[in-house]
């Protein structure tokens, strides 16, 4: 069975036993419960809130638990304009998040500085932290953020988690 494979469980066929690989199982647990760190810095954060509320309901994808503590979160959603004054704080919060951790850059500002070609704005949050998914839009619709989340889930699901561990050890 390949790492990418999801756990397929059919109780009629397999009874009470599930066969899978350990990293596939761990990735499956992880990707369906990505707790966001809502780094809401400007207008995009309003759409992030909409994504969390009932109409769009990010809970359908297991990410409804917005954690305001970096220690408890898995994915930082940078939603808004990152000013240079805020950049150090964003970096510090990212450093405080426990591994494994991922980053979604939501909107034009977080991805590239957006319309703010100016002395005060960091030209893309990827200049200070690694970004996994970029979302286009000013602001992106909540559906776009949910799409990014699904893309990120795909990425987490493909991670060769155990072999990475061995390489480190």
């Amino acid at each position, binding site marked *: 069975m390949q790492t990418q494979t999801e756990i397929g469980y059919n109780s009629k066929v397999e009874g009470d036993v599930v066969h899978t690989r350990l990293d596939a199982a761990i990735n499956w647990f992880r990707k369906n419960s990505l707790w966001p760190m809502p780094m809401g810095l400007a207008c995009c954060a309003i759409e992030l809130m909409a994504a969390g509320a009932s109409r769009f309901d990010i809970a359908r994808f297991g990410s409804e638990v917005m954690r305001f503590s970096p220690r408890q979160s898995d994915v930082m959603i940078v939603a808004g304009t990152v000013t240079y004054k805020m950049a*150090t704080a964003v970096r510090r919060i990212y450093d405080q998040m426990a591994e494994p951790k991922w980053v979604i850059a939501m909107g034009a500002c977080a991805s590239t500085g957006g319309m703010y*070609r*100016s002395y005060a704005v960091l030209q893309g949050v990827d200049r200070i932290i690694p970004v996994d998914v970029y979302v286009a839009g000013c602001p992106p619709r909540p559906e776009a953020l949910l799409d990014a989340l699904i893309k990120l889930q795909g990425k987490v699901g493909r991670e060769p988690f155990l072999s990475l561990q061995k390489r480190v050890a």
Partner: protein
Amino acid sequence: MTAGELAQQLKARFGDLISAPVEFRGEFTVELSDAECVAEVCDFAKKQLGFDYLVDITSIDNYGADPRWTVAYHLYGYGHRCALRLKTRVSEEVSELPTVTTVWKTADWHEREIFDMMGIRFRNHPDLRRILMWEGYPFFPLRKDFPLAGKPSNVPEVAFTNSAPLEGGPFVTAAGGKSATAREPRVRPAETDDHPEIPQAAKEGK
């Protein structure tokens, strides 16, 4: 009581220090020739003329002219509901004038903002620190000779800056052009040369 009458009263009290009130679209502006007197004039305007609300203080960089700075005070009175603009000029060598926090407490943050963005100091201000940028940032970003893209700087553990990629900008629009391409030279013309209405500078990508 109208704003014009109040401006005349200010002029009657301070004589030659205050210019004749100028009216533009119903707004009155007086100019104060000696910036050192600004606190005194404001004190009179508040206590005797009823301008109890300082709406805003702004600064203007008349780059290349002398004196370089203009500081503008926008006064309003809730009693008489009249507004008055008071302007005064400060040279670049001096770059300092008395604070009006002694008159209106609210001047505190306005003056800090001007100090932060333009680098004009206010004497006897209770707490003249930067308000938008951080302590240690070495530039004054609203000065006309500061590039829009910014300049690199670094205060370890606090913040850093870099200059932004402007890709040939900053872009401006020119009034009076006959077509959108002429009005907004940043619009890329088609790959032909026969656009007589495009200014030469725009063709050269300036």
